[in-house]
């Protein structure tokens, strides 16, 4: 599997400053997150060979696509990438089927139509094969773009702000679509976005970019608990992200019980039992207690042990990490609370979380099959 890992190293001083290096394994989805102008799209274009930075090293699918040190540069049409553009970039003169078939020119003529139809069916567009882009809705165009990117069985899937041009209602549906497609493909995927929801719902890893430089690079759950990261935290505040499975769905109470590594937690929402989900608990919605009062409305009382207490100069709040089984839950409390409860590593505490505070989304990226 190692040879299918995407290796990227890009560096130049101008005109677009870049200093980026990362790897992305097959089955992983790396979200490149950052403000506009941070070089996100340039990184994606450099992988596809549409942009040529001064110093570039790109390896994917066991091939070297760029290696400026050795003078290697494979033109974009010989790189097996599936690229979904922000504005879809469909070919307006071709039908949906024709758009997908255009990516299949390396296959025998007779096979193309069947393969194009299969790809369109995968994104639930069977029956719209004969439509031209202007006869399709925004969401449908997006799905044609996705089918076109998948058609040639890419060695790497590149998504440039894939949901920016559709409205919120369609977006969630499309995210699920991308997630499903993503699962069917055991290749690295790189997603450029400035929407936190995309990150939480689709990514396994995050690369935080600012001014062409990597600010942070880690798994989604690791990055989400860090209070010091601009951009990511501005969007939602620090919190804990973890993967879980729906254990029970209680329709009457309108809640779902989630099983995670080391316990159960109740969240508001609906999802059939067995669904893999990703949950996010904002750190400021976690209450810590050393003893439990009676008559609480809170559904979740998690018992654990304080692992770290991190105070920072700029923030009045203190981040306290509590180990609950295999889960490390981040809680944001005041300095005063730290003093009153004598919070220190090793101290047993109860973490109280309201069911409505937990943000649950059907999980998008499955971990790579091993």
């Amino acid at each position: 599997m190692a040879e299918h890992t995407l290796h990227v190293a890009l560096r130049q001083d101008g005109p677009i400053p870049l200093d980026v290096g990362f790897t992305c394994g097959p089955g992983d989805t790396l979200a490149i997150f950052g403000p506009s102008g941070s070089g996100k799209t340039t990184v994606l274009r450099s992988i596809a060979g549409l942009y040529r930075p001064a110093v570039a090293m790109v390896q994917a699918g066991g091939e070297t696509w760029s290696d400026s040190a050795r003078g290697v540069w494979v033109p974009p049409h010989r790189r097996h990438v599936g690229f979904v553009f922000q504005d879809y970039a469909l070919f307006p003169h071709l039908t949906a089927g024709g758009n997908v078939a255009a990516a299949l020119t390396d296959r025998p003529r007779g096979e193309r139509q069947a393969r194009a139809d299969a790809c369109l069916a995968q994104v639930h567009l069977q029956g719209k094969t004969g439509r031209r882009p202007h006869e399709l809705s925004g969401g449908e165009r997006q799905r044609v773009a996705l089918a076109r990117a998948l058609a040639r069985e890419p060695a790497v899937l590149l998504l440039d702000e894939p949901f920016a041009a559709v409205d919120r209602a369609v977006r969630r549906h499309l995210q699920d679509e991308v997630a499903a497609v993503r699962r069917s493909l055991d290749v690295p995927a790189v997603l450029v976005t400035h929407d936190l929801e995309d990150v939480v719902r689709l990514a396994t890893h995050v690369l935080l970019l600012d001014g062409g430089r990597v600010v942070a690079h880690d798994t989604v759950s690791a990055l989400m608990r860090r209070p010091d990261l601009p951009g990511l935290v501005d969007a939602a505040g620090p919190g804990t992200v973890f993967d879980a499975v729906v254990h029970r769905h209680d329709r009457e109470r309108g809640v779902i019980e989630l099983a995670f590594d080391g316990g159960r937690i109740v969240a508001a929402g609906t999802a059939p039992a067995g669904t893999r989900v990703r949950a996010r608990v904002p750190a400021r919605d976690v209450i810590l207690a050393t003893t439990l009062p009676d008559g609480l409305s809170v559904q979740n009382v998690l018992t654990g042990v304080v692992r770290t207490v991190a105070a920072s100069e700029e923030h009045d709040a203190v981040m306290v990490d509590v180990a609950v089984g295999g889960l490390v839950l981040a809680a944001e409390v005041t300095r005063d609370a730290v003093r009153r409860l004598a919070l220190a590593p090793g101290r047993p505490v109860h973490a109280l979380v309201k069911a409505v505070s937990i943000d649950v989304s059907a999980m998008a990226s499955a971990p790579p099959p091993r």
Partner: protein
Amino acid sequence: MDWQAFRVSLSLGLWTVALLVPVGMWAGHGLATRTFRGKALLEAAVAIPLLLPPTVLGFYLLTVFSPRSAVGAAFERLAGASLAFSFPGLVLASIIINLPFVIQPIQRAFEAIPADVRDAAACCGLSPWQRFLRIEVPLAWPGILTAMILTFAHTLGEFGVVLMVGGNLPGETRTLSIAIYDRMQAFDDTSAGIMAAVLLVMAVVTLMATTALSQRLVKRRG
């Protein structure tokens, strides 16, 4: 009605279109998609025939075509015939004066294709040549068609340069426009009138054809 002149005009128009459109597609595509040193200068040079009086252009072309110039002499050695006052010379002159009429609309048409669409075609595995034939030319087709029709119509109507370079040799360089002038000089108003009407009808028909074709293309694409 001078049918011989009509045939000369028609074949001059068709030859010009046939030889010029590939040149225009190559040049227009290059100017639309590439950046290089001296591009602005080249674009200005292409537009020169639009501004120069036909007689001035004709004078310079005739000078170059003359057997006393290097170009004219070389052609005469190779082809055994003179460029000046001959049909091949007329075609060459027609190509030069029509350059802006072909290159500019084609360049605009290629420029109108979004860069993302071009990039998407590359990411679909299409080679530069496949991208050109399957994606860019079909999308630029209305512009290419406009260029073809403009060139054809413009060639039929060209008078000054044709007279300077080609003279008035029946069956060789006498086009309809020249024949009209010729008939008028001979006080043969009826013949001149018929030929003028033929050119008018052809102009109206080509215009209608362009409009109809481009409307169909627009409807197909939305």
